[in-house]
């Protein structure tokens, strides 16, 4: 290794005073790369096993890259490549393979043929059968319908006394009657309506009463469900929680779990009666995903009816999220088994509702025919397109054989349909047709199957122009499942999934508990919802808002005046202190340690998610050990000390200033001016991706930069595209993001219009060129 050093020194001497170093020396950036770098980094920056096996890519501007090379490369001999040489190499690798643009150019992205993601699988299953029931208008929030009855002995509903709407079911009447006109010793109440599930996931329900009660969720009403008499023998639906028979006046508790899909409504019924027990009381509680045990409020209850849903509840192995969005690329044994088991369970569940769904009872003389028609419709819906007569023969009729009950045939058709590639792989490549467009629209907007209206439009050839498509996009975007999917994007963008299992030091932060955290999540969700669904739907408003929806509990904890009115209302903050989502205490709490803030976590979040920049995983995992530092240091000083090495500063030069700008917030997101008995220093210098030096004095400067930065905005467009389409944007053309970004900017950064544009563009991809002649 001596020789190159000597040679380099010589070269520098020879080329001193020359304007174009590389040119004068006759050695290009590429030549230097080949000579000094290729041994460890490979021909095209792909890495070399045993030396440096990571690919060289990132988003540093050339001068930043050059400085990094000058300081650190080649490893252990950085003096070999400095000054103009470092710049030449930086320019070469930037153009050849390092920059995002180079990577896009080198490996032209393409649309992968992928299976349904877990979310898409569950949503599709629910909608596969949902369309066989008559549609109901969306259930509007507002509590449950309650009908109160006077009972008489065995007759629980002897006389209807009152019908009303209850915001929640949480009553303790003691020894009293619930309402005038009913005796206190015996009465009954029937609550009915819908449960509105905010998130997808496992829900727990808890019913408590010293009296009799049965809870039904996601069950269709059956004859006999009125529970009029104790000794009535009508066949009723199985209760989710059955506490019908009381026990010595003791308060009993029943708990059950259900997997529900977010953005959907489920029929809910609660039958209750008191008969001569001393006390009367009943409470219905739930624990939604990310939530705490609480009484579901009127926002999540509706007096309107809903149709029951078929829910696939088997746990599926997690989807690949390595590119920052979920993709159905992994086809593993465990996935295949889980999907098969789900197909079995779902078809079993459908069998229990077969009469309802097929519209044919056990004594129907045309049952076999009707079941065949039902099975055909299921197979077609699962394939997202009409089946040819040959396919109907092989996928449906073939299962209806003499000697086999038609019900068994239906079950097999369903199994076949749910495990077929045409269902599991929604876009099997090939030349797209009208039904492909319909299928993509449903998938991109709702993660689900096309509805009857889309299939109808496809059949008529009315999904061909961007205008026709956009009309459906607008219609679908307003539906609860589409809103749920968009909500999912923001949860992802704001890393809200990472907030589960957060705990904070109880002594340092008295009053910060699971309930407060749940309120914080709700507050951030509401902030996002309000902006996204407002008329302007302005992305910049998310970053710059100077008020946040808070309830009384949050206001008290964060020391602001309580909001006027009940529930969550906007509370204004000092705009100098806080800005939009960036300083929302939920995020500040998520990106913090048990007791102290974490500028690194906050900085990484801002770099990647908000400013849209790329960061490679850290070269080594270094745990932040608070007790290793001089105890008098501030958090900023500790982080500076921890990351001062050049190897770290490659990324931390970007991460740290952003994280430090939020140092005015402690581990639960309260504003502070002192850290460890020293004044907080939130000022730093930050180098943007465009090479501009920026003085950041606090969160508002970061937010203002994010709101005006092309890079940040493009990052947002890219992330929203990936979440919506679940493919690489470049697969839809090299200028896809640029086109979408231009439109986004022109629309005043209108989020919903951006979704519309993304979906329209991606749904028609490859289709325009193959337009069939109009019918």
């Amino acid at each position: 290794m001596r020789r190159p050093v000597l040679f380099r020194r010589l070269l520098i001497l020879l080329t001193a005073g020359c304007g174009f170093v590389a040119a004068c020396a006759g050695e290009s950036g590429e030549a230097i790369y080949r000579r000094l770098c290729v041994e460890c980094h490979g021909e095209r920056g792909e890495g070399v096993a045993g030396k440096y096996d990571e690919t060289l890519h990132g988003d540093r501007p050339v001068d930043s890259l050059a400085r990094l090379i000058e300081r650190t490369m080649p490893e252990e001999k950085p003096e070999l490549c400095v000054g103009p040489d470092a710049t030449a190499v930086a320019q070469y690798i930037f153009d050849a393979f390092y920059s995002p643009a180079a990577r896009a150019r080198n490996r032209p992205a393409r649309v992968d043929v992928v299976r349904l993601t877990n979310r898409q699988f569950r949503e599709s299953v629910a909608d596969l059968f949902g369309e066989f029931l008559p549609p109901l208008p969306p259930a509007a929030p507002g509590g449950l319908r309650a009908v109160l009855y006077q009972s008489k002995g065995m007759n629980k509903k002897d006389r209807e006394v009152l019908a009303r709407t209850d915001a929640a079911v949480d009553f303790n009447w003691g020894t009293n009657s619930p309402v005038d006109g009913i005796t206190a010793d015996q009465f009954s109440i029937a609550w009915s309506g819908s449960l509105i599930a905010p998130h997808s996931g496992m829900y727990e329900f808890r019913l408590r009463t010293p009296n009799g009660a049965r809870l039904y969720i996601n069950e269709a009403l059956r004859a006999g469900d009125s529970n009029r008499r104790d000794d009535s023998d009508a066949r009723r639906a199985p209760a989710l929680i059955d506490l019908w028979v009381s026990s010595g006046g003791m308060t009993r508790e029943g708990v059950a779990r259900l997997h529900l899909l977010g953005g959907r409504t489920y029929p809910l019924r609660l039958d209750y009666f008191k008969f001569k027990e001393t006390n009367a009381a009943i409470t219905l509680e739930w624990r939604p995903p990310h939530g705490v045990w609480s009484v579901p409020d009127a926002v999540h209850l509706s007096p309107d009816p809903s149709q029951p849903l078929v829910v696939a509840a088997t746990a599926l192995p997690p989807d690949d999220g390595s590119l920052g969005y979920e993709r159905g690329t992994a086809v593993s044994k465990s996935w295949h088994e889980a999907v098969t088991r789900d197909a079995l369970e779902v078809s079993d569940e459908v069998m229990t509702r077969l009469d309802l769904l097929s519209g044919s009872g056990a004594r129907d003389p045309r049952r076999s025919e009707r079941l065949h028609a039902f099975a055909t419709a299921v197979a077609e819906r699962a394939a997202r397109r009409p089946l040819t007569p040959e396919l109907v023969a092989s996928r449906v009729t073939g299962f209806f054989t003499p000697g086999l009950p038609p019900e068994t045939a239906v079950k097999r058709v369903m199994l076949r349909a749910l495990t077929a590639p045409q269902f599991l792989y929604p876009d099997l490549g090939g030349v797209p047709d009208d039904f492909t467009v319909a299928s993509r629209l449903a998938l991109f907007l709702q993660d689900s199957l096309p509805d009857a209206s889309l299939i109808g439009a496809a059949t008529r050839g009315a999904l061909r122009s961007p205008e026709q498509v956009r009309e459906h996009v607008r219609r679908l975007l307003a539906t609860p499942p589409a809103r749920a999917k968009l909500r999912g994007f923001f949860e992802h963008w704001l890393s809200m999934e990472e907030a589960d299992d957060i705990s904070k030091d109880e002594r340092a932060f008295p009053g910060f508990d699971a309930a407060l955290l749940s309120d914080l999540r709700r507050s951030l969700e509401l902030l996002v919802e309000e902006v996204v669904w407002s008329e302007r739907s302005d992305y910049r408003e998310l970053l710059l808002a100077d008020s946040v929806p808070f309830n009384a509990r949050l206001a008290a904890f964060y020391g602001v005046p309580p909001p006027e009115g009940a529930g969550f209302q906007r509370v204004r903050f000092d705009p100098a202190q806080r800005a939009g989502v960036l300083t929302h205490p939920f995020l500040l709490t998520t990106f913090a340690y048990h007791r102290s803030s974490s500028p690194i976590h906050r900085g990484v979040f801002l770099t990647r998610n908000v400013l849209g920049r790329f960061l490679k995983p850290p070269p080594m995992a270094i745990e932040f050990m608070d007790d290793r530092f001089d105890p008098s240091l501030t958090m900023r000083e500790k982080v500076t000390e921890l990351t001062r090495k050049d190897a770290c500063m490659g990324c931390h030069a970007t991460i740290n200033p952003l994280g430090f700008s939020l140092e005015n917030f402690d581990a639960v997101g309260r504003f502070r001016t002192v850290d460890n008995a020293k004044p907080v220093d939130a000022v730093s210098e930050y180098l943007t991706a465009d090479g501009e030096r920026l003085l950041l004095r606090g969160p508002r400067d970061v937010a203002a930069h994010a709101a005006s930065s092309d890079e940040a905005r493009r990052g947002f467009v890219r992330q929203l595209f990936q979440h919506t389409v679940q493919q690489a944007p470049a697969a839809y053309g090299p200028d896809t993001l640029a086109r979408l970004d231009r439109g986004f900017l022109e629309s005043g950064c209108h989020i919903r219009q951006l979704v519309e544009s993304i979906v329209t563009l991606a749904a028609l991809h490859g289709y325009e060129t193959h337009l069939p002649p109009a019918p």
Partner: protein
Amino acid sequence: MNLLQRRQFLGRLGLSAAVMPFLGGLPSLATPTASGGRQRMIFIFTPNGTVPPHFWPEAAGADFQLPRILTPLEPFKSRTLTVKGLCNRVRGDGDGHMRGMSCLLTGIELFPGNIQGGSDTPAGWASGISIDQELKNHLQSREETRTRFGSLELGVAVPHRADPWTRWTYAGPNQPVAPVDDPYLLFEKLYGRMKDQESLGSVLDGVHQDLRRVATQLTAEDRDRLEQHATLVREMEAELKSVREQKLEHPEPVLEPGAGTENDDMPRVAAMQSDLLVNAFANDLARIASVQFTNSVGQARLRWLGIEEGHHSLSHDPDLNESSQEKLVKINVWFCEQIAALARKLDAIPEPGGSGSLLDHTTILWTNELGKGNSHTHENIPFVLVGGGLGFQTGRSLHLEHTPHNRLWLSLAHAFGRDLKTFGNPRLCEAGPLALG
């Protein structure tokens, strides 16, 4: 089995449940059966009391005649034991029918509650475990007697409601166990996974062909994904095939389709349920069972006997009403025929790895919620035991005097090697188990 139960049932099977269901937990597949010495017990309930003069043998001891109602048991007379003089002495809340039913196998009071009968105070569930569940827990607690289900709770024409009149077996205080009265659901519970395998087997090949066909039209990277999928489907097919080649020792019965759970289906359902029960015992899926015909206060109309009136209404008619008494006798003869048919089926199957038949290692116990319908008495409740599962001395008629029935449950527990000092209400257990051996 409703959907929730089915979910939990499937959930217990683990991830590979869809394809690997029979590779564990089904002893009968491990072909050579373990050593003999199995003990089994079937509790059978029929409602509304009996017609005592036609039910109880006049003579006590080994030299006795089977009265009219018991004549169907003639072929099993030497293996039959009648026990007269047992009483349900449990008092407390609830009307006579509720206590007759829910205190029968539990021997303990009902909780005060909110279910009101035609008389007496309202009541809730029984406050203790029932003897069948006690025996099941005992057998399941030991490796050598553990079976896949432990116990099976069957019903015939049980109403679709849950209250102290319709439940007689309890897993513990306030924990009634619902009987399965739909033979297709019972079949599903016992053999559902086999049906799932058949259904799966019928679709996998088509799916595999689809995947292969679709894959050929794709670019290399995408094709790999679908071919990987196709390979997984082939593997699942192969696993299924090898699993399905294993046969049950006693193949599952073929159920004729179309039997409902309505009144008029009772004879068919009774026959199907007993076929399934015998098959489950033969395959050693369980060693304890209960069969509940209708419910306490059951109003079955046995039209196939030419009887249009409801059973409970008839049971209220006075002794002097000869026509009603004759009908009640016919009804009870029919019930006894069901017991005899079950005994016959058990007797036709050799005891695996043991001597004699299944019946020689099984005891059927037939009982009732009342001694007599029109008096609602809890004295002299019918108890007939058929078979050799308990090692009791059979072929005799036993006359006891006002003995709490809790003591019979103690005898059962002891016969199963469970040396309980008391069962149910301890006050009713004084003097310990009955000496029946």
